[in-house]
């Protein structure tokens, strides 16, 4: 067995084997499930790093033939800069969230650890399979694996979660079927299912309605999966009512993987001329994304539940990615890929914070937050602050730089409306995050008498006593560690983004862009 040669296939297999065996191995010893999941996840991170380094060293895509059949006959795995990078992002985030999961699952889902962890592992298997595969139909299969697990992981939440999951299931099935239909059209026209092969054949049949329809269907399907603006209907409910760990796992990863697949389909299957010249699919995507950015931000302002707010903000942020994809120029693409990374980290951090709230306060209602939390959970709030600033897009946090690339992309494209949308959404983001920061870091306004500000020594004694009686009640280190790691990562990623762009993302830009 040659580890180097087989490394592309090992990550999905790792998750697959552990996922299928967890129900058997952990049948009698339930605590084992968590350790299996953690071990598999840690190993996957190591393997992802290994893969990324290998890709960077080799410098060109690594093809792995499953069953040793040549690509147009069998299925192949393609490990290039893009897939290796996104795989590392997703696995690392999942690993951190899994470290976090223990207490949260124990309190929210007692007695369901075994199937829960098994589902999580299978979900990760699905994600990794989707990201690394070079075959259109194989992608569908793995898409369905992770969709099914997502329905389940969402549905174990609070009372309304099952309905949210059902809605998601209906939408998700439509998405899957549309994707399948698109693949069908493509297969009939080209006679191949391999992405690279299709890419090679398609220039012989530009402008054919069937191919265009195929592209439309695939885009629609993936648009639903990534919650692109008018197709985002399932997302807010699903993310709100899911258990904390599920939201923290799904929100950073689910939509990102779908966006990744959209990038693949657009740039590596259809090619840029097809997507932006033959039919303005890219333009349509970017327009929708812009509307989504504004809509998501405004809806986020209107929410009173933290998780729901974050869910709508996800809609907006997915809009950024969609915009970057739709711009169809190098800066836009870099921005999109960088935002996949940044948004994954930010959202994971924020959802973990909301999970901390749920565990310690029993709710995550924005209007019930007050300045006692700052004393109770100072570290959690520090993480929240950093993530919020990053979401707003303030330098030197990571969020700024993806916006910067996107802004460059829009200018390159010459569309001022897009630029304005990106910038306005910054302000809207600021509105909904500073609202919370104000609540947490300041005295409640209602408790002040109207004339206290007249004097220098106005201390409101009741408030002060209240603040002093509040005991430190931070979550356990196993939960704090991932939260803070993600928050710190935001600063580090922001400062080091050029290294990431220069080292990895620059190479993903396909020729002719």
């Amino acid at each position, binding site marked *: 067995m040659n580890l180097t040669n087989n490394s592309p296939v090992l990550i999905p297999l790792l998750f*697959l084997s552990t*996922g*299928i065996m967890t*129900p058997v191995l952990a049948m009698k010893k*339930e605590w084992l499930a968590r350790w299996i999941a953690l071990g598999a996840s840690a190993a996957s991170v190591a393997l992802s790093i290994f893969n990324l380094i290998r890709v960077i060293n080799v410098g060109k895509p690594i093809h792995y033939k*499953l*069953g040793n*059949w*040549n*690509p*147009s*006959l*069998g*299925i192949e795995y393609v490990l290039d800069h893009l897939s290796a990078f996104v795989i590392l992002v997703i696995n690392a985030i999942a690993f951190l969230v899994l470290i976090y999961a223990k207490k949260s699952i124990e309190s929210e889902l*007692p*007695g*369901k*650890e075994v*199937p*829960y962890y*098994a*589902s999580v592992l*299978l979900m990760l*298997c*699905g994600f990794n*399979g989707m990201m690394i595969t070079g075959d259109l*139909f*194989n992608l569908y*299969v*793995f898409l*369905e*694996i992770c969709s*099914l*697990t997502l*329905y*389940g992981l969402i*549905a*174990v939440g609070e009372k309304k979660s*099952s309905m949210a999951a059902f809605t998601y299931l209906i939408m998700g099935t439509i998405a899957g079927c549309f994707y399948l239909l698109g693949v069908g*059209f493509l*297969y*009939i*026209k*080209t*006679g*191949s*299912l*391999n992405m690279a*092969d299709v890419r*090679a*054949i398609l220039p*012989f049949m530009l402008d*054919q*309605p*069937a191919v*265009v*329809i195929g592209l439309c269907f695939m885009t629609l399907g993936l648009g639903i999966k990534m919650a692109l603006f008018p197709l985002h209907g399932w997302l807010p409910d699903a993310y709100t009512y899911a258990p904390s760990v599920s939201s923290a796992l799904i929100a950073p990863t689910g939509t990102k993987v779908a966006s990744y697949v959209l990038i693949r389909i657009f740039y590596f299957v259809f090619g840029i001329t097809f997507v932006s010249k033959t039919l303005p699919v890219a333009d349509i995507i970017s327009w929708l994304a812009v509307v989504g950015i504004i809509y998501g931000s405004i809806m986020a302002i209107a929410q009173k539940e933290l998780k729901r707010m974050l869910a709508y903000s996800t809609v907006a942020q997915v809009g950024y990615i969609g915009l970057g994809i739709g711009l169809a120029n190098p800066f836009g693409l870099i921005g999109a890929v960088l935002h996949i990374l940044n948004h994954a980290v930010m959202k994971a951090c924020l959802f973990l914070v909301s999970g901390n709230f749920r565990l310690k306060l029993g709710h995550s209602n924005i209007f019930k937050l007050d300045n006692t939390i700052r004393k109770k959970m100072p570290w959690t709030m520090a993480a929240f602050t950093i993530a919020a600033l990053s979401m707003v897009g303030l330098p030197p946090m990571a969020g700024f730089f993806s916006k910067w690339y996107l802004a460059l992309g829009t200018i390159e494209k010459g569309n001022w409306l897009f630029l304005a949308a990106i910038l306005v959404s910054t302000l809207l983001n600021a509105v909904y995050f500073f609202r919370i920061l104000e609540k947490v870091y300041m005295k409640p306004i209602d408790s002040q008498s109207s004339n206290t500000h007249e004097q220098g020594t106005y201390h409101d004694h009741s408030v002060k006593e209240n603040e002093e009686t509040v005991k430190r009640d931070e979550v356990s280190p196993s939960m704090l560690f991932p939260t803070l790691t993600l928050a710190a990562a935001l600063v580090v990623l922001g400062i080091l983004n050029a290294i990431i762009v220069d080292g990895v993302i620059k190479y993903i830009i396909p020729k002719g862009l």
Partner: protein
Amino acid sequence: MKYVNYLILVVFAGLMIAASDNLPNRGDANAPANREISPAGSKGAAYYYIQNSKTDSNTDNMVTVILADWRGYDTLGEETVILTAGLICYLLLRKRRKTDDTKR
């Protein structure tokens, strides 16, 4: 609103039927999917499958060979899908153990 939905459906179906005009005739043995060599020079998968099921895998049923060997990984995924469905039902519906059982 309801009529708009119906309208969308009809338009949708109409579009697809219009697009189907561009699809090759059914049953055409020379359709792109049945070619030996694609325009880009790669092997046509279906053509190869039909000819080589016996020589490659000593099996008569081509579908079985595709399912289990040439595109075996899809089938592994498919099995995983159904296992996932089982697990989700387990996760959602099966009775929880008593809490003092888990704390052992």
